[in-house]
């Protein structure tokens, strides 16, 4: 059984794979320190990944024992501009009414602060962020008041996105890795445009404004998701990270879920699978997230890692309706003894492995880890995660 077949069975729950799939998201710091033969400039790295995904991303993960997973990104405001633009950029026509002027407003040895000045027929707007190391940090946001919503009508049209390079990369990899393309969900995109603190207070101060913003971003995201359907990706991680900030079920149901429902439906219409990404808290509205119709739920972050999910509880409550994609506390990979890593794998598999519909995945990206611990994680899962599973408590060969 190849990687894509194994993970697809877990996602769709139509049958049992040969074993539980094992995925992780390797962070840039881990890649730079551990698997690269020598330091590389990020742009050079991205070109290598696009030109030779099998010899880079897929190989590095397979060598560690993982089922390789390719995590590409869609461009979104204020963040991660470089990698997505190399993969997919807009035709020139898309910028006819959205002219962006990028101005460097500060520079230090380790960082650059950039302001994007937006010119549209509806007026001017601006947002700024700092680029430092591998991260971009928003400093202020495009939507400063209600009038700025008009600017959003002129954002580049996803129908004019050129997806050829992403499509070619997907074809090169085929079924030797699971493709999980990351794109924002509506609440996350709204937070990136408005700032999550202000947006949270808007829920009380101007709820109609929040609905207007969510409508605008949802309509555009649905077009993006449809366009991504042309690339052959297996799945999208619909990133709703800020849903996990600590929201009430009422707020989720009124302001977020209706828009999430539309996005999930648009992804399914485009012919690929969707994993709902909440890497924070949400156990209070777990059933609501599942009711969006998503195929998988990630990252099921345990309490020890600042989430509020208990994997066994999640399996009991919704395991018959959705694939569970996560739950492993990746911090153990850094300093813990191998025995603890084995115990953590077994805890996850005992909690959620029964009957399929489970993918062992680190809850967060791996920034620091002992590679030997990743190998222990993978070997334990390969042995203990076979289907049919051993009776719980019977141990395993790890």
């Amino acid at each position, binding site marked *: 059984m190849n990687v894509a077949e194994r993970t697809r069975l877990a996602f769709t729950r139509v049958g049992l794979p040969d074993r539980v799939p094992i995925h992780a998201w390797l962070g840039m*710091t881990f890649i730079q320190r551990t698997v690269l033969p020598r330091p590389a400039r990020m742009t050079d790295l991205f070109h290598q990944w696009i030109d030779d995904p099998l010899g880079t991303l897929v190989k590095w993960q397979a060598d560690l024992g993982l089922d390789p997973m390719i995590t590409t990104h869609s461009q979104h405001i204020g963040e991660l501009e470089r990698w997505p633009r190399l993969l997919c950029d807009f035709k020139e026509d898309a910028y006819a009414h959205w002219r962006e002027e990028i101005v460097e407003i500060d520079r230090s040895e380790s960082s650059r602060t950039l302001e994007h000045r937006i010119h549209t027929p509806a007026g001017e707007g601006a947002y700024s962020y*700092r680029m*430092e*190391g591998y991260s971009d*940090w928003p*400093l202020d946001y495009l939507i400063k008041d209600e009038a700025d919503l008009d600017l959003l009508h002129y954002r580049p049209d996803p129908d004019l996105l050129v997806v050829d390079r992403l499509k070619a990369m997907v074809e090169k990899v085929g079924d030797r890795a699971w493709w999980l393309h990351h794109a924002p969900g509506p609440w996350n995109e709204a937070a990136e445009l408005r700032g*999550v*603190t202000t947006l*949270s*207070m808007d*829920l*009380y*101060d101007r709820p109609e404004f929040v609905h207007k913003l969510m409508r605008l971003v949802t309509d555009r995201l649905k077009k993006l998701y449809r366009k991504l359907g042309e690339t052959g990706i297996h799945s999208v991680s619909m990133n709703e990270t800020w849903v996990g*900030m*600590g*929201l*009430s079920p009422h*707020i989720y149901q009124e302001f977020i879920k209706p828009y999430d429902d539309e996005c999930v439906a648009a992804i399914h219409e485009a012919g690929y699978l969707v994993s709902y990404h909440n890497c*924070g808290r949400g156990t*209070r509205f777990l059933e609501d997230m599942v009711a969006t119709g998503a195929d998988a739920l990630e990252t099921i972050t345990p309490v*020890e*890692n*600042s989430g509020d999910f208990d994997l066994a509880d999640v399996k009991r409550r919704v395991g018959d309706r959705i694939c569970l994609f996560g739950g492993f506390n990746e*911090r153990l990979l850094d300093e813990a003894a191998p025995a603890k890593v084995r115990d953590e794998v077994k805890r996850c598999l005992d909690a959620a492995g029964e009957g399929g519909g489970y993918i062992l995945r680190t809850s*967060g990206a791996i*920034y*620091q880890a002992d590679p030997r611990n990743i190998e222990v994680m993978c070997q334990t899962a390969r042995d203990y995660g076979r289907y049919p599973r051993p009776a719980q408590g019977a141990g395993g060969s790890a």
Partner: protein
Amino acid sequence: MDDVLQAIYDSILEGRVTEVAAEVQRALAAGHPAGVILNQAMIAAMAEVGRRFETMEYFVPEMLVAARAMKEGLALLRPALVGAQIEPVGKVVLGTVSGDLHDIGKNLVGMVLEGAGFEVVDLGVNVPPEAFVAAVREHRPQVVGLSALLTTTMLAMKATIEALRAAGLRDQVVVMVGGAPVTPAFADRIGADLYAPEAASAAARARSRFADQGGAE
């Protein structure tokens, strides 16, 4: 509770900024002492907000709007507090550590601490260890609060504590740490005094620790 104090209390609980401002002015005009307004209405309301957060009746947005209302009321009350020589229960120097520009958690902790009667010196984000050291020398706080959102940046908390130690200031302050990736075990390992899993408990734990040392309460 007096009607106007009850109105202030209710307005903070419901995050109504305009009403809080109007009611604080009405209370002052009616001759209520600033200390009574602060303690019986405002701090009591924020304590109730914290309780509701812990019991999951309130969530982050409700805390944010309540803390904003508290801050608005406090700004109006401050001249009267100064006039009555009412001191804050303690002083906190707060910041997101070096390399990290996330501020929502830090801001929330700051607002909640102010709501609990602390004076807060907010150093902002991406604060290097030496800036914490300088702020401790300048402001002489009882508590230093360190925030981080990333596993990669939380290591700067350790560097900050070591810088305070090297400057001979470590024993003069209670160091409180928090943020999404921070755990009690990590807090112990880097030599922090207090770990706050979220904003509501940050204020309660700071007050409790401070009281143990003969400060507030």
